[in-house]
Structure formats: C-alpha cells, structure tokens
C-alpha cells in the first residue's frame, strides 16, 4: 500500500496529476455547478493568489508580514477608482493597481530595511493599519467609509465577464495560472535560491555574496504586486469595496493559509486556501459554533501537522536538467582538480 502511494508520488507522475487537476478545473463550471459554489471557488482562487504572493515573502524568504491586506487593498482601490472615474479597461486598471502596490511595498521595504523578525512583522502590521486608515480618512479620493461602488466588471475584447457566463471564473484560473507560473520561474532560479538562503541563514547568505537587502526588497515587491493583482481582480469581481474588507483579519487569513498549507510549497497554497475558505462555508450548519469549530480546526491541524499540511521534504532526488546530466555523464568519474577563479579568459596556471 505504502509502496503504491510512494510510487504514485514519483516525479514522472507529477505532470500527469497536474494535467488532470487543471483539466478538471477547466471543465468544472460546465458540470452545472451552482453560482454559489462557483463564487466560493473564485474566493479560493483569490486567496490562493494572495497566499502564493505572501509565500514568496514569508514562506521562501522568511519575512513574516502581518499587514499584507494593505497591498491587497491598494490593488483593489487603485484599480477600482481608475475604472470608475476614468473608465479604464480592467486590464489597464489592474496593471496600475499592481504598480502602485509594488511602489508602496518598495517604500515600506526601504524604510524597514534594518528590521528583522518580529520587529519587521509588527512594522508591517502597523503599515497595514495605516493604509486602512488612509482609505478611511482620505475621503476626496477613496470615498472614505462609503467605499467605491459600481465597479465595472472585467471585460475582454468588449465581452463582459460575469459569474453567470463563467467568465470571472476563467479569468481567475488564468490569473492564478500566470501568478503560479511566475512564482515557479522565480523560485527555480538563483533568485529563489537567494530567497531561501536568506530565510535559512541571512548572515551566511551574505557571505555567499547575496545582496540580502536587495533580495528582501525584491521579495516584498513581488509579493505585494501579486497581492495587488488579486485585489484588483477582487474589486472587479465583487463590484463594491470599502475599507472593512482589508483588515488585519484578512492579513491573518492569508498568513494562516501560507502556514497551514506549508510554507515554501506551491501545492500548499492551493490546498490551504481551499480549506480555510471552504471550511467556514461547510460549517454553516453549526450556526453560532461555526467559528469555534473553525478555531478548533486550526489548532488541531497545527497540532498534527505543525509544518503545514503539505510541508514535507521531498524525498525525490534533486532534478538535474537533461543538459546537466549529459555534461556530467560525459565527464564520467574523471579526477577533477579545483582551481581558483582567475577571470574567464585567462588560462589557469597550476
């Protein structure tokens, strides 16, 4: 039994699973799911995006943000305001939301460069609250507590995407796909390795020549941009936003997904989001006890899997690209003499 299971987890099967899941997701709406279920799927998608972004910062780089709702809010507001006042197209408005979220995260990261650990977390928490206060107080622009209403739905080539025509759902899938791909590309590069090295041992990372502050700022900007994109999508999906959506609770929910799913994993983000968004809905029958049980679930899940649901070390070998394997095979087991680096062109002397 265990053998079959571990067989199924072999890397050669991975592609197959991923393809199967993607296909299911694509054909799901055609099965006549209710709009209620669809909406929940969309919320799961949004939180998966948010978690994916926060994961870059917290899961991989080890910087715990307790104020990520701020970037979610900025993306939502910038995009919503541009779309309602200037009638900008959704995609352009979203781009603007992403850019502003990125810039604001850059400012935050640059001011808090010297902070580490809990001190950084609290600074981000403070930042989240400050942004919310700005949304509430800067009435001429944000409309204060009245929020922004009548946000246009996304439209694509003149075709309006709604819940009913599944357009919103597919847009969510596409966005989530793009964000996942981006994260995948970044993590599987020197940037990703630098992120993880910083999380593991920042000082040692510096001695590897990694400009740690630069990479931490980069992680901030990447994760804030993703949150901004998710915020923009949320605003155009829900069509009314006010400061109450972007509270500390929202930041905590994102963080919970990242940790519960498994920091520094991809699959954990989808599963974590699915669980934490679907549970409150599934627990409706409990009435007043709904969030008591929700809390209990959080406690129990951490108790039994403190490293996150899907946070295990892969027992698969490290994947060497074909090119590398060939180069190594060619080399065989020939004796290697290590020589110090002398500049690329210069011949090396003994």
């Amino acid at each position: 039994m265990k053998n079959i299971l571990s067989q199924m987890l072999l890397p050669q099967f991975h592609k197959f699973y991923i393809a199967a899941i993607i296909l299911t997701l694509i054909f799901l709406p055609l099965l006549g799911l209710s709009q209620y279920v669809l909406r929940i799927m969309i919320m799961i998608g949004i939180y998966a995006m948010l978690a994916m972004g926060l994961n870059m910062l917290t899961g991989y780089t080890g910087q715990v943000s307790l104020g990520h709702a701020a970037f979610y809010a900025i993306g939502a507001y910038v995009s919503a305001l541009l779309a309602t006042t200037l009638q900008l197209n959704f995609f352009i408005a979203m781009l603007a939301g992403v850019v502003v979220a990125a810039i604001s995260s850059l400012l935050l990261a640059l001011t808090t460069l010297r902070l580490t650990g809990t001190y950084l977390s609290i600074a981000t928490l403070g930042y989240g609250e400050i942004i919310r206060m700005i949304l509430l107080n800067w009435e001429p622009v944000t409309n204060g507590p009245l929020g922004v209403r009548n946000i246009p739905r996304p439209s694509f080539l003149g075709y309006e995407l709604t819940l009913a025509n599944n357009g919103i759902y597919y847009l969510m899938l596409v966005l989530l796909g793009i964000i996942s791909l981006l994260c995948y590309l970044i993590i599987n590069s020197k940037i990703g390795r630098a992120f993880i090295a910083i999380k593991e041992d920042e000082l040692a990372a510096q001695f590897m020549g990694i400009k740690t502050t630069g990479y931490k700022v980069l992680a901030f900007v990447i994760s804030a941009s993703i949150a901004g994109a998710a915020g923009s999508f949320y605003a155009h999906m829900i069509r009314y936003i006010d400061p109450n959506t972007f509270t500390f609770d929202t930041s905590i929910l994102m963080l919970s997904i990242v940790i519960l799913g498994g920091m520094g994993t991809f699959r954990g983000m989808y599963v974590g989001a699915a669980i934490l968004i679907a549970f409150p809905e599934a627990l409706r029958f409990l009435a007043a006890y709904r969030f008591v049980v929700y809390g209990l679930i959080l406690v129990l899940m951490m108790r039994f899997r403190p490293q996150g649901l899907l946070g295990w070390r892969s027992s698969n070998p490290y994947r060497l690209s074909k090119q590398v394997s060939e180069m190594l095979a060619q080399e065989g087991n020939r004796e290697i003499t290590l020589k110090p680096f002398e500049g690329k062109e210069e011949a090396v002397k003994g």
Partner: protein
Amino acid sequence: MAFLEVKSISKHFGGLMAVDQVSFKIEKGEIISIIGPNGAGKTTIFNMLTGVYSIDAGEIDFEGKPIHNRSPQEVVSSGISRTFQNIRLFSNMRVIENVLVGTHIDTHYSFLDVLLRTKKYKKYEAENTVKAVEILRSIGLGDRIHDYADSLSYGAQRKLEIARAIATNAKVLLLDEPAAGMNPQESEELLQFIRTLRDGGYTIILIEHDMSVVMNISDRIYVIDHGKKIAEGLPDEVANNPRVIAAYLGGEKKYAENS
C-alpha cells in the same frame, strides 16, 4: 606587494582588546595558519577580514586594493570566502543547492532572463550545476548531492561548508577550525584535500587547534595571544618557540605522535 596583506589591525569590544595591531601577509598559493589560545582573537581576525566587524585601526589590502570595512558581499566578490567556526549551512536546502547558492555571485542573468528562461539563464544554470557537482565530487560528497544539508554528519557538514565557499569563485579561503569534530582519519583526508586545493592554486588561511593538521600543512604560522602576535615563522620554528609552548602548546609537543 603581497597577495593579501594585513597591516596592524585592531579591534576592541568595550574594554577588551580582542585584536591588537596584528599584521601578516600571505602570498598567492600559500597556506598559512593562525593559531593561539582560546579567545586570542583568531576568529575576530577572520571577522574583520570578511566584513563582519569593522576594524578600529589598520588596513587590509587584497591584490593591492584596500578591502577593510567592506560589506561581506563585497569581500566575497573580491575573491575571499570563508567557513564558520560554528557551522552555518542552509540546513533545509539540499547539499547541491547549498553549493548552488555559493555560485550565486557568478550567475549573471537578469530578472527577465529568469521569467523568459532565456538561453543565458539555461547556460548559467547548467554550467553552475555542473560546477557544483564537480566541487562536491572532488571533496568527497559526490554521492550526497540530493541529501538535505542537516542530515549530514558533522564532518560532512564541514566539508560542505568548504565546498560552498569554493563555489563563490574564491581565490582565498579562510577556514575556521575545519578539522574540529573530525577524527584523526578524517582530519588526514581533509589535510589531503586542502593540499590539493593549494596545488590547484588556492590561497588558504587556516585557524586550527589540531596540531597534526597545522604542522603538516602550513607554509608559515602566525601565533596570536591576547590579541597580539607573539610569534611567526615556519612550523618547526613556531613549535619550538618557548613563548608559544608556554601560552599554547603546553608541556609536550603532542602533535608529533601523529605525523
């Protein structure tokens, strides 16, 4: 002009003079050792060389250029790399990934290359991976590349630290007690490995309390006590220096037994 020259550097912590006007130099391809009693200031010298601490006075020149009071990153990119007295690996990364992090500094592709998976990206990734595997093979960790760093035994972890330091394209390696925690057999292997590095052209500065290693490998030895240099010279000279014996080696020359 020496390859690496330390000119009368000092460092104090509060009232404690941890390093007091220490000077030494090393030529390309040499192995020198810094020895001395516990708390003499050896690790502090490494910390000043690599930018962990700023220096209170003095100068450090590498290849004719001053490198003191630079950030660790700048020091590494100039070609000086180190290991730590207390092992500092990226424990949740695999062995090969640890070494790949070491190649970071020599990976010159941009963010755009990453997103587009350009040829440049692929070339660097492939070359660096091959390089990493080669380093690991040569240090005897070729069959452990897939393991996670913290599942290695102590001795293997020390080797991995050295491999990671080499991967940064270092010309000078600063090794802080590399043989600590190794049994005589393993120290002997390490000794051989350090020799081959030297033969390959690396310059090495060693801090070590294991005299069987120090005396057998060093071209020259500097002895520090209470932050001050108290002796320098060839291994034999140092080993027979009464001051060194009194302050450090103790009554008998135990190292001789194992050579």
